[in-house]
């Protein structure tokens, strides 16, 4: 351990004295307060906070990711290139100890820098209301929709298998199956239609959703939604009546166990909006019902996109949530440090950097990458499922565990999400990279060939 720590401190000194780390630190130390001063968002306090924290966290995360990649690779490849490793590895230190030392050094540096910068962001965010002197309503809005951690409940896609099968049989009987479609394609198309129907409300129709285990900590809960509308009215505005309360009442008209609240809103289509209900609408068993009525004077069908409806309620404090969000960044850095060591165990500096950057950016858009490849897979099924799918599966999903995605809409980063992130990103993917790196480094020839 003493030896590992010796290597770790040396790595930290290297990062600091070779000015790689310093550049990033100065950049962040300057940029973060400047961001805090200049961001205004949509001129409200909430908008200002959201913009600042979003940019601040993204910038910190991005720069620390780059820093981690560079330091972890440089500390190994420079040792090999400049041959300091000749004198180090011939001392009583095992090769895995050397790599562990480098990893430890990078991680200690990461933890220190991440703590400093996230503290700066946190403090600046907390004190923004003090400096900007917002109106009372803005302050309440910021408290309810930013300085909080709200659990988000989504509507899962409806199970329409039975319906689809019925419809398929019927079409088959009538011999009206679409020509040129395979069985799978027909089913997929029918499923899509059926699910769309579940999310659509014709003029005067009502949609009812059920949410379980709703346990709000504060006095209010929020519905976050986005409309699609067809045909589009000239002003793109949608009138909607929203009801919240006991699910049994909304669905079956039974005697309500809670007060039922009813609001009519006019909102623009295709952007997210939030409306607030008192927490009293949630019955004791936690089964909340939400209903939307497409009021007749819309004269258009209203459709909710697949991710277009959420119920949000306070489940934790802002500080706790912020710390967990920062931990998401840390796990990302752990992965990149391991990846950097893996790359530098067999690649030279520029190639290893390139390799890691490709992985980093691919991982940052993993959702998009996965989608594109699965689209591609229709044409190259077997080849895909044995090669690319496997490789893409090994990439971490940085966008899925993106902290700003949670902090900006004040969504709860729950522990199970954090645990999943640790398990997949650190325990499996990072460890795999590290072990591979250790094996390669253990057996490679350290000295350059000189004859």
């Amino acid at each position, binding site marked *: 351990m003493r030896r590992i720590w010796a290597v770790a401190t040396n790595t930290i*000194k290297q990062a600091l004295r070779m000015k790689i780390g310093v550049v990033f630190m100065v950049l962040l130390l300057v940029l973060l307060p400047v961001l805090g001063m200049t961001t205004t968002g949509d001129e409200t306090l909430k908008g200002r906070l959201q913009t600042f924290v979003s940019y601040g966290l993204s910038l910190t995360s991005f720069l620390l990711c780059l820093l981690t990649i560079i330091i972890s690779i440089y500390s190994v490849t420079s040792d090999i290139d400049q*041959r300091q490793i000749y*004198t180090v590895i*011939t001392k*009583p230190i095992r090769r895995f100890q050397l790599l562990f030392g480098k990893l430890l050094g990078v991680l200690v540096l990461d933890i220190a820098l991440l703590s400093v910068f996230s503290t700066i962001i946190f403090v600046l965010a907390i004190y923004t209301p003090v400096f900007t002197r917002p109106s009372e309503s803005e302050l309440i809005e910021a408290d309810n929709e930013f300085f909080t951690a709200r659990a988000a409940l989504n509507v899962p896609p409806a199970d329409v298998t039975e319906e689809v099968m019925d419809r398929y049989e019927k079409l088959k009987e009538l011999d009206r199956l679409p020509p040129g479609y395979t069985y799978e394609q027909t089913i997929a198309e029918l499923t899509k239609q059926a699910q769309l129907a579940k999310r659509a409300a014709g003029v005067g129709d009502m949609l009812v959703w059920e949410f379980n285990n709703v346990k709000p900590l504060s006095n209010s809960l929020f519905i976050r939604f986005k409309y699609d509308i067809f045909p589009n009215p000239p002003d793109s505005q949608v009138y909607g009546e929203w009801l919240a309360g006991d699910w049994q009442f909304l669905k079956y008209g039974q005697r309500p166990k809670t007060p039922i609240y009813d609001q009519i809103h006019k909102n623009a289509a295709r952007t997210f909006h939030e409306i607030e209900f008192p927490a009293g609408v949630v019955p004791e068993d936690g089964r909340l019902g939400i209903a939307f009525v497409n009021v007749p004077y819309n004269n258009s069908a209203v459709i909710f996109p697949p991710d277009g409806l959420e119920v949000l309620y306070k489940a934790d404090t802002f500080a706790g949530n912020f710390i967990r969000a920062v931990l998401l960044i840390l796990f990302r850095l752990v992965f990149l440090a391991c990846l950097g060591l893996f790359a530098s165990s067999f690649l030279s500096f520029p190639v290893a950097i390139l390799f890691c950057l490709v992985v980093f950016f691919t991982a940052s858009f993993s959702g998009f990458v996965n989608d594109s490849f699965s689209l591609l897979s229709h044409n190259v099924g077997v080849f895909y499922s044995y090669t690319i799918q496997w490789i893409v599966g090994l990439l971490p999903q940085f966008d899925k565990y993106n902290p700003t995605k949670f902090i900006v809409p004040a969504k709860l980063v729950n522990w199970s999400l954090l645990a999943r992130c640790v398990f997949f990103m650190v325990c499996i993917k990072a460890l795999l990279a590290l072990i591979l790196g250790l094996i390669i480094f253990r057996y490679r020839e350290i000295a350059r060939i000189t004859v």
Partner: protein
Amino acid sequence: MEYAIETISLTKIFSDWWGRTKVFAVDNLDLQVRHNEVFGLLGPNGSGKSTTLKMLLGLLHPTKGKAIVLGGDGADPKINARIGFLPEESYLYRYLSARETLDFYGRIFGLAPKLRKMRIEALLDMVGLKAVANRAVGTFSKGMARRIGLAQALINDPDLLILDEPTTGLDPIGTRQIKDLILKLAERGKTVLLSSHLLADVEDVCDRIAILYGGKIQSQGQVKELLQQTNKRQIMTDALSDETVEKIKQLIQAESSECVVTSPLDKLESFFIRTVTAAQQQAQPTSGAVSTTKIGDFLTQQQTTESILDKLVAAPVSEETPQEPPATQKVAAAADSGSEPNEELLSRLTDSTEPPQPVPRVEEKEKVGTQPVDSHPVEQEPEKESILDKLVGRSPPEDGGEQETDKPQAGESGDA
């Protein structure tokens, strides 16, 4: 453990990407280095010296054959703990200071903080870099870097020193110092394996040599035996009157032998040092930086070197050396060249009249700007002594540590 280092048909083939053989860097090398000897690997550039050393230490994997170092694998940390290695260049972390560099290596050896600190100070003193100990080694000249490189190789008080061209980049004075140091270490029971293409270096310090070419040993044996001309005799005296010379000539002619009387030639090294010194002195006015008080510093350093080494190494010295007769006789001679009887011995062995001048009246060019120490050599010496006494001699825990590391060494030199 008969040998400190033994290789058994060690072979290294460098192949291209397709696995086709390109070069036999080392070819079926059978090398034996005994305990407590200074062994020199000689050869022109690219003859496989460095490759051999790297294979000994596990930096390169042999294509075929085996290398046994101190009875084990040279890549094994347990063995590494007893080896000091100086690569062909001192590859140092540019951003660390001299002291931090040594501290880093000391920590990798797992030395306890107190012992580490003591050794670092002693080594800095020894290599004469105490004054610049807090400067980043990236700013060091090649010679200074070499000294730090040597210091890091000694920090674990190794039983076996592997030095790859230890004197490259050093000026003649630095070279002389390193050679003296090697001899002193050998005197204290260390085994030294060095590679070099500088014949003078090897001739001066090595007991045995092997000459490599094309990765194969072309010739090996004791330096003395290889070089001695047994069919000739040389008599060395002080200046004699012509009369006496005539008498001697007659005596010899009576034995019907040829006889040539000349004044003996100076050693090339001494001549070289003098020449370079003169050249340096001429060059100085143009470079601007002049300092002429360096001689004292070197004298001081040598003496400190001795005292520090005595304590640092603390191995059996004079009592045990007779066990290695041919090696240590010469060793003792060259190492203690300052004293009278050794001078004689040395001149007898090296066929030269002039006693070696370990420290000629020279200032080392590279140190001109960087070593203000030099101006107080007299003050410093007793101070160094006392610090060392305090650190090494008196303090019980460190003393214990020292003895521990030294015990096996004493045993080995006995075995050999």
